């Protein structure tokens, strides 16, 4: 965010620049909301996050180069905002994960197709790094290179996170939610938590 908040002299910007920026930013709001929703889960908290990101992007507009990828730029701002807030409320996210595990084990319909609710629960169980990589590439329409830029990591790291997220989701949805006694769900959970622990020590 330090680079993004560095403002060029005001005189270099015209009202037309601001208008063009604003127009593009407004078009991105639905996407910012969707990305925020996948990070937060809770729709109200997600909209708060999306609004904060939108205002931050607006305030930092002088540092944005028109014609470059504004979607990736705003997603990066939103993501940074999310993690700076998350650091303040780490305990809350732990609780969310426990809640997700309980809900998942309670699912009891082996015949169901991939239901949206299950997918949400499955996503909630993934380590945050894997979840965001999968969302950006698998739903947000970003190339691996763009996702790497947004997440501030190497392209190879994004690729491996996406592939691990896909495998884990598959395992959670098939062996977890469909398992009546929930045994597989806790197995999946254990490996996911081990993954998360390993990632957090790398940081």
């Amino acid at each position: 965010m330090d680079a993004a908040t560095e403002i060029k002299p005001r005189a270099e910007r015209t009202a037309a620049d601001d208008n063009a920026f604003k127009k593009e930013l407004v078009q991105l709001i639905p996407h910012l909301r969707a990305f925020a929703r996948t990070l937060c889960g809770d729709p109200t908290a997600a909209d708060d996050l999306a609004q904060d990101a939108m205002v931050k992007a607006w305030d930092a507009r002088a540092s944005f180069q028109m014609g470059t990828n504004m979607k990736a730029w705003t997603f990066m701002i939103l993501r940074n905002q999310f993690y700076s807030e998350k650091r303040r409320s780490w305990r809350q996210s732990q609780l969310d994960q426990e809640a997700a595990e309980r809900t998942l084990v309670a699912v009891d319909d082996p015949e169901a197709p991939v239901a949206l609710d299950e997918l949400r629960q499955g996503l909630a169980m993934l380590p945050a790094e894997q979840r965001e990589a999968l969302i950006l590439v698998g739903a947000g329409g970003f190339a691996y290179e763009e996702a790497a830029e947004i997440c501030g990591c190497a392209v190879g790291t994004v690729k491996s996170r996406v592939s691990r997220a896909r495998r884990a989701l598959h395992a959670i949805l098939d062996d977890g939610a469909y398992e009546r006694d929930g045994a597989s769900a806790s197995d999946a959970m254990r490996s996911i938590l081990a993954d998360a622990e390993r990632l957090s020590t790398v940081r």
Partner: protein
Amino acid sequence: MIEQRPSPERRKASAALDEARLRQQAIGVRLRQMFDEVVNEAVPDEFLEILRRADERGGSENG
């Protein structure tokens, strides 16, 4: 003549692979649906209101 039919074991393995691939595709489709569902929601007025206020705030500074 070359034997065209795969062995039962191979057929089974390839069927399992196909099923896994289909499953992944289904998850991918759902993932996009989940995302697009929110993208297609009407943006709450609050967003534009906040942006308008931010714009006015920026404008009143005026260098």
